[in-house]
């Protein structure tokens, strides 16, 4: 009960912050400030994910995901050095094998940005809040996903740009097992090679709660350890129908590394190829007969995306 109330309070705070910027988007607000639309952005992606269950060993299930996302924003110059950016987005992901994970989403993000000058190397500081509703082909994961945090974007050289972010992620699912919170610290380097080619390298550390889905009957000893460790945060996962699988909410630390290549074309189009690897380790005590290694897992995601701005 207390957990649900805390998440609802945080959700209200996030929504209130987002709503606070809405008057700027009204016609009156548009007249008061110099409203400017940002280009619409559409991306379509195909991702291979070797561990959609976020589980170790034979519980790791592989799938391919077709994704699409569209966004459009508005800029509000607030002063010569500050501005607000509000954008709405909508999209969906279609899983090939495990359709219960397929979902649609829509949401909004508001950013408040500061940049000290138009100098090449000046950093852009940003505070953001984002909220989105998610509707799955299954039921338990339906709900809301929120994030808020700070980012800094700074060109280090004329070829290398640094992006750093500290953000809090909050998921409010229909089942309390899917109510999770975690904190992420992220660094990203973009390396431009020529006008149209960019390589990027990202590293992220996440600490908090995550959900892992494991087969109930495949390894009774492992299941007993999982149950003893995660109780009472367990529920039969309705996204998987191949066999009975249970979702466990656990505290974990996750390190995520990303390597990508982006090839731009004229007219705001680009093709993006990336590999992301996540490594998770349990951040709470494992209860016998489980050991911490039973909860460790890795995820590899290979993604090809086409993006267009217009």
């Amino acid at each position, binding site marked *: 009960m207390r957990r649900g109330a805390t998440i609802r309070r945080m959700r209200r705070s996030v929504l209130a912050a987002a709503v606070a910027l809405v008057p700027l988007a009204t016609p009156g607000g548009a007249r008061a400030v110099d409203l400017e639309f940002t280009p619409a952005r559409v991306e379509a992606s195909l991702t291979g994910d070797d561990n959609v269950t976020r589980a170790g060993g034979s519980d790791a299930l592989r799938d391919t995901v077709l994704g699409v996302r569209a966004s459009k924003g508005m800029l509000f110059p607030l002063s010569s050095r500050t501005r607000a950016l509000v954008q709405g987005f909508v999209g969906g992901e279609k899983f090939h094998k495990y359709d219960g994970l397929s979902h649609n989403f829509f949401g909004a993000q508001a950013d408040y*940005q500061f940049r000290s000058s138009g100098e090449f190397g000046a950093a852009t500081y940003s505070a953001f809040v984002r909220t989105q509703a998610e509707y799955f082909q299954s039921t338990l994961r339906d709900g809301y996903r929120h994030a808020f945090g700070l980012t800094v974007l700074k060109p*280090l050289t004329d*070829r290398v740009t640094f992006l750093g972010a500290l953000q809090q992620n909050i998921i409010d699912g229909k089942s309390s097992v899917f109510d999770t919170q975690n904190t992420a610290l992220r660094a990203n380097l973009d390396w431009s090679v020529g006008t149209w080619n960019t390589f990027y390298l990202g590293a992220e550390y996440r600490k908090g709660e995550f959900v892992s889905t494991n087969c109930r009957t495949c390894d009774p000893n492992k299941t007993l350890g999982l149950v003893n460790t995660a109780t009472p945060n367990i529920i039969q996962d309705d996204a998987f129908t191949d066999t009975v699988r249970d979702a466990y909410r656990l505290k974990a630390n*996750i390190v995520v590394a990303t390597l990508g290549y*982006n090839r731009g074309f004229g007219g705001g189009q*680009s093709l993006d190829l990336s590999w992301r690897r*996540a490594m998770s380790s349990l951040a709470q005590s494992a209860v016998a007969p489980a050991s911490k290694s039973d909860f460790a897992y890795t995820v590899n995601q290979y993604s090809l995306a086409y*993006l267009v701005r217009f």
Partner: protein
Amino acid sequence: MRSFGELDDPRRRILIQALAAGFFSGAGTAAAQIFGRAPGQLPAGQSIYRVSGTVSVNAKPATLQTRITPGDTVETAPNGEVIFAVAEEAFLLRGGSRMVIEQPPARSGLVTALRLVTGKVLSVFGKGRPTRIVTATSTIGIRGTGVYAETDPEQTYFCTCYGVADVAANTDPTSKDTVIATHHDKPLYILAKGKEGGRIRRAPFINHTDQELMLIESLVGRTPPFVFPLENYNAPRRDYP
């Protein structure tokens, strides 16, 4: 026994030889070529900030030491690109381009005159420095501005990134326009052919970025009038779910 100053450690000897040969400054230059460097005002006497691929000045291969002055012709092969400054003006000349920096006639009132024969160039000019740019299909008079042009015999793409530009079609004096821009407000196509008075058309914003404008302005000690660059990077930046 070794004499004083003789190096008995071969690793130390190799290190000192490498230092003497300028190995590390060479490595630094190579690293700058690969990972770039923070741009700043060019020192007096230096014209070229960066050169890549095949680039020539007056038909001679260009290096970082090459001086560029009015009267010179700068040419890039399709794989080439050069970023340079002349007086208070700075340029990014893309591959497959040929540009002549002309000495404007005395009494013309012009400080700079450019002839973009073919190709693509991003340019910034100092305030109070009237300039004329001639392309294959247009003649443009500008004052204290940043502009981007692409030209071929059929058409010119011209974006007044900021500042004022008087644009006229070479083949039709009745096709003309004055653009007052703060941030890429009115890119144009200037056509070689078409009906009289209609050879200038609106165009989209293409093939140049605010980051490039900030870079070349920094070479001449200035900053552009905008603070926030338009977003041009188009990678997904998706969160790990």
